[in-house]
């Protein structure tokens, strides 16, 4: 039985459809990432799984239970990390973990948890004075107090510095090693690729693709061969040889719009050899990033990389 599954999930806010037919599942011990630009429906989806939202339609099961109607049975077995807040601002990590421990029948000892998330040194610092990364780790610790079988993490690495991310990553890997199912959302491709066993790419409330990072990378944007060599090659000659369009995409990176066959790759290698040009790299599959961009496109809602973006206010 999958730890988490939903099929044909639809979530509406008034007349707006935030989630439009999402189906997904995750097994125990698996890390599943919902990847997509802001406003794609990731948080709405995860909040249905957590039991916060009533779906307009679709079937949802977490550990075999209905998150709304069997909420009381389910909450003791799941852990939740909200996108923002969720912790008393004036209370330090130790006190709030101690409090949450009392909610659960068999909690993780507070000392163990503080060490695990690396908050022992700031255990008495009020939550509002913790750094972004420390707040996220405190929220993560609270999601783990009850030894959950499924953990839902909404943007766990948002606002966390690179060092903090490494810590969060190893924590999440540790969860999966203990057979905990992790369902997380992120709008960062690299984060999803590093953390997740499987990815589900969502845009405008719909699943565009799903699979492992390698599987997704294989689904390029059509028949393409990419190679790298020295810059400024006279590609007109190669176009004649292959009978296909060749473009120098970036300096010394070339894209050939042709179905990759052994003949094609051999022809490229030969053509380069005749010009004494070294073949540095040749790929017949797209990278995950290329797949992602070809699927998601450059929607206006996509993040601007140069500027740290603010979270969209949810209703």
């Amino acid at each position, binding site marked *: 039985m999958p730890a988490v599954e939903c099929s044909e999930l639809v979530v509406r806010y008034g007349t707006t459809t935030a989630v439009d037919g999402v189906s997904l599942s995750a097994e125990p011990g698996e890390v599943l990432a919902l990847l997509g630009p802001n406003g794609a429906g990731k948080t709405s989806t995860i909040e249905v799984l957590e*039991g*916060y939202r009533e779906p307009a339609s679709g079937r949802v099961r977490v550990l075999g239970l209905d998150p709304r109607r069997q909420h009381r049975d389910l909450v003791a077995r799941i852990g939740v990390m*909200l996108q923002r*807040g*969720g912790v*008393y601002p004036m209370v330090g990590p130790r006190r709030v973990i101690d*409090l949450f421990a*009392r*909610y659960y029948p068999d909690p993780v000892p507070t000392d163990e948890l503080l060490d695990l998330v690396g908050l022992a040194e700031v255990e008495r610092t009020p939550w509002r004075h913790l750094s972004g990364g420390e707040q996220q780790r405190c929220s993560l610790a*609270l999601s783990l107090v009850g030894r959950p079988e499924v953990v839902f993490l909404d943007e766990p690495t948002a606002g966390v510095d690179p060092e903090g991310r490494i810590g969060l990553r190893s924590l999440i890997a540790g969860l999966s090693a203990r057979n905990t199912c992790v369902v997380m959302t992120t709008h960062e491709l690299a984060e999803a690729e590093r953390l997740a066993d499987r990815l589900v790419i969502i845009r405008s409330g719909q699943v565009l693709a799903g699979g492992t990072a390698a599987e997704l990378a294989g689904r390029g944007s059509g028949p393409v061969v990419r190679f790298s060599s020295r810059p400024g090659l006279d590609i007109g000659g190669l176009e004649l040889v292959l009978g296909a369009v060749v473009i120098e995409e970036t300096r010394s990176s070339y894209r050939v719009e042709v179905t990759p066959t052994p003949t094609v790759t051999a022809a490229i290698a030969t053509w380069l050899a005749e010009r004494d040009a070294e073949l540095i790299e040749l790929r017949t599959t797209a990278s995950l990033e290329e797949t992602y961009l070809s699927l998601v496109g450059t929607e206006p809602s996509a993040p601007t990389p140069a500027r740290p973006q603010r979270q969209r206010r949810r209703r």
Partner: protein
Amino acid sequence: MRALWAQVRAETWMTLRRGETLLVTVGIPVVFVVFFSEVHVLPTGRVPAVTFVVPGILALAVMSTAMVALGSATGFERAYGVLKRLGATPLRRDRLVAAKIATVVGVELIQGSVLVPIGLGLGWRLAGAGTSVPQAVGLVLLATIAFGGVGLLLAGVLRAEVNLAATNGLYLVLLLLGGMLVPLSKLPGGLAAFARLLPAAALSSGLHASLGGAGAVPVESWVVLAIWSLASPTVASLTFRWE
């Protein structure tokens, strides 16, 4: 039960650490009791000032804790996503509400243990026809539920900052219209009639009777408080938004 008790302890700890809460629940009532008992500016007629002031300020203290402190804290917990997060734990909502009620009652006991000795020190005595501590306790319990419901009603629908302003504004209005400092008889007739329908005046009239020797507790006090203590929590529970 373990969860409930832990929640009561945590809520009490947080309440007693919020400076603004201590100011409104203990600081202001103490200042009022001392000042208005010693400086005879209130139109209390032939009744000694302290005899009027102590029951009135006890009523104010109840309103401060059950409505202002509970309401503003809950509003901020809602804004910070704490209430939402607790919804995904095994702590049941009824236990959370029970913990908040227990915390309010605990703070009221602290207020009583500060204000009553100060009142006694200033010359307040429980004497006169109709004084009854059990009746006073009953009135305080009803009023706690009524004010708590009003505080949660506002906290459950307004943004945290708006809620804070609204709760404090309401506190000021009810302080002036509640017969706590100014006897209701000094208000214009229409305003006094309106004020009598509010829980503040009902509680202070009841306490003036049961603790100040102003005669038997008016039936009106019981009726008004009973209605508010049913209506306000009911409306709050129907309208409360957890996130």
